[in-house]
């Protein structure tokens, strides 16, 4: 019961369990309001667009005649539009919002000149819009994760540089002397991204390297944007919200430091495991495989740290939407990372490489981990920006169940289907005819579409709640936070 009350308190914007005074926090929150809201609104719009592209591509994979006559919506383009909208539209915008908000709070720094940030954000979104449009009209580069045509690169780069610099300035002028682990992750991510992005752009598009060096650069970039941009931002959010909502400190400071450095040093070598068996020097692959195995260290360390923080407070999952999404995300992070390491084992890669299994893995990471953590963060941040509560607990509940069940079905379908596909591909004796393998995968692709519909329902619930919150009038007196159920009723049942 005590824990239930504590949660109610920690979730209530009008109380603050930390030493930083409430007045100061709300001043900081207020300074982030305009840019954070801008990024969040953009991200939700991109999420809806990305979901639509996702459904279209998913249907096309088992029913190729679906919208088959439209060049702009041919599979190769709409699937690419999906990836780029959910990555550079939804995920990056959400990451910006969360990173800024956390940075300002943790550094105890009022965001200066928020208009500038707002302009940079506008440029970023204009760049992504032109990029997606370019992909649909046929200007895709066909470089995985870097498909947006080269004419938007400068725009995106400048926008990013401004945003990154602003976060660092916010940090620099903060009053806090202590650097919390979330800040480490955010600062590192902000620094790594432009490096990865500029090298990849130069060596693949503007001054292309010769031969398969391009492939190495491609996967060095594409895997690191997951590992050194989305993962740190996601973990930063987990490290902040988990203890925040529970109202107790993170289990171990040292584990979080160890987790950070081991991630920083191992992850960035792991990407080349996407090329196992391919025409690149064998030693790079071996190094990549070794690094992938070493990734077990940061993952286990981080998950122990998170788990130990949760111990004793699991009942809180019944009430807090933020906590539920964040915990779902944190658990997914552990599982998908371990899966990722296993996929670097040569004999396992022989089966799963080139199959739908990889797509399942990618969604486990980007959706079940990162996106769920962002949802959780947004549920916490929005009331503090808007100074009002989420209008509907039922919609939050729908959002949670539809997306979590949806993504579980999604990953299960593609994992099973992918393994069967991979085994069949390697088994010429029993599957000499390629079409039999195509036939074999169809029912899994169909299940994926059903999962996609469920996820779409969740997103719609979220978007409706979000829009409703934006337009709903502010309650006169401060209201209680929107929880899945009311903790006081717990008191009675207990």
């Amino acid at each position, binding site marked *: 019961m005590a824990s239930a009350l504590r949660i109610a308190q920690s979730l209530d914007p009008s109380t603050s369990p930390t030493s930083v005074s409430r007045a100061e926090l709300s001043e900081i929150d207020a300074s982030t309001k305009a840019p954070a809201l801008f990024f969040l609104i953009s991200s939700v719009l991109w999420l809806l667009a990305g979901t639509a592209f996702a459904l279209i591509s998913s249907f096309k994979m*088992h029913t190729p005649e679906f919208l088959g006559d439209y060049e702009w919506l041919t599979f190769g383009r709409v699937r690419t539009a999906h990836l780029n909208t959910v990555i550079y539209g939804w995920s990056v915008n959400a990451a910006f919002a969360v990173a800024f908000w956390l940075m300002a709070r943790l550094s105890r720094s009022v965001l200066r000149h928020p208009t500038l940030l707002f302009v940079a954000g506008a440029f970023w979104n204009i760049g992504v819009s032109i990029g997606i449009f370019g992909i649909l009209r046929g200007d895709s580069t066909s470089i995985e994760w870097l498909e947006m045509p080269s004419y938007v690169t400068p725009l995106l780069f400048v926008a990013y540089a401004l945003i990154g610099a602003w976060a660092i300035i916010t940090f620099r002028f903060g009053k806090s002397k202590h650097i919390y682990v979330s800040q480490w992750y955010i600062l590192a991510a902000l620094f*790594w991204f432009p490096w990865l992005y500029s090298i990849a752009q130069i060596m693949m598009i503007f001054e292309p390297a010769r031969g*398969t*060096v391009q*492939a190495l650069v491609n996967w060095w970039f594409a895997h690191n944007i997951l590992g050194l941009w989305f993962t740190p931002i996601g973990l930063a959010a987990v490290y902040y919200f988990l203890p925040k909502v529970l109202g107790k400190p993170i289990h171990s400071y040292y584990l979080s430091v160890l987790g950070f450095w081991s991630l920083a040093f191992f992850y*960035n070598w792991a990407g080349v495991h996407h090329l196992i068996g391919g025409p690149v020097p064998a030693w790079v692959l071996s190094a990549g495989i070794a690094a992938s195995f070493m990734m077990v260290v940061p993952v286990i360390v981080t998950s122990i740290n998170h788990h130990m923080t949760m111990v004793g407070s699991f009942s809180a999952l019944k009430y807090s939407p933020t906590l539920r999404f964040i915990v779902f995300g944190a658990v997914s992070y552990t599982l998908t990372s371990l899966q990722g390491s296993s996929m670097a084992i040569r004999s396992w890669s*022989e089966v799963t490489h080139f199959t739908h299994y990889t797509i399942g893995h990618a969604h486990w990471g980007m959706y079940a981990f990162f996106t769920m953590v962002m949802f959780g963060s947004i549920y916490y941040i929005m009331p503090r920006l808007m100074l009002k509560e989420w209008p509907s607990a039922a919609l939050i509940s729908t959002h949670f169940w539809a997306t979590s069940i949806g993504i579980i079905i999604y990953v299960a379908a593609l994992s099973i289907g992918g393994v069967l596909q991979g085994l069949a591909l390697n088994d010429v004796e029993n599957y000499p005819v390629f079409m039999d393998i195509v036939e074999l995968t169809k029912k899994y692709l169909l299940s994926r579409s059903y999962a996609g519909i469920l996820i779409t329902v969740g997103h719609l619930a979220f978007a409706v709640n979000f829009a409703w919150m934006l337009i709903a009038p502010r309650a006169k007196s401060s209201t209680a936070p929107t929880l899945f159920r009311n903790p006081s009723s717990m008191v009675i049942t207990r």
Partner: protein
Amino acid sequence: MNRAPLIFLGVFLALAFSWTGIVLTNQVAYGNLTPIYDDAEEKIFPEATPGVAQRGQLVYQDLGCIYCHTQQVRRLGYGSDIERGWGERQSVPRDYIREKRVLLGTMRTGPDLRNIGARQADSTWHLLHLYDPQITSQGSVMPPYRFLFEMRKIVGEASPDAMNLPSSYVDGTPLPPHSVPTEGYELVPTERAKSLVAYLINLKDTYAYPETFNVFPEEEAEAEQSEAPAEEGH
């Protein structure tokens, strides 16, 4: 104590490490591979890609064929690429040095296409397959690329390129009416379709470079193998 500079240094070194290791080292080590001149054949390999095939590659890129097709053959004993007839030998870095954009790919929803020109050189087959994959491969999940073709009125003489569509699929169901030209009309591939097919037919790595042979005497190769059993042997 302000630890920000220290953290920053570590963060910098972390990425510098793999940037040097994966990107720079390899760029220096084999970023300047050159073609090989074969005295016997009096030709340079890999051969230059004809212009029409280069244009075809751009079509391949803009339509996103890469999301279902790889272009890399793995060695014998790792996967079954060679057994499936997707190539005579494993792909090596030198195969790709002429390509502006290397399209190795990561998905095999469809077959590997690195040597499609060697196993299917019939442009009529490719055009039919692109127009409607169900004609040549019923049950395929490959999308139709009908928009690469033009349905037009026959003025004067019929075009020599005009497509000859079958009246029904293999299982006997007729082709949908909207995809068959009506009386007085003909169906012709656009330039894009033609260059795409030229690109596909040009895709073949049949030349054997020195590095594609096992250069070690037998025992030495065995010793190598037992040392590094899982390593790709070049």
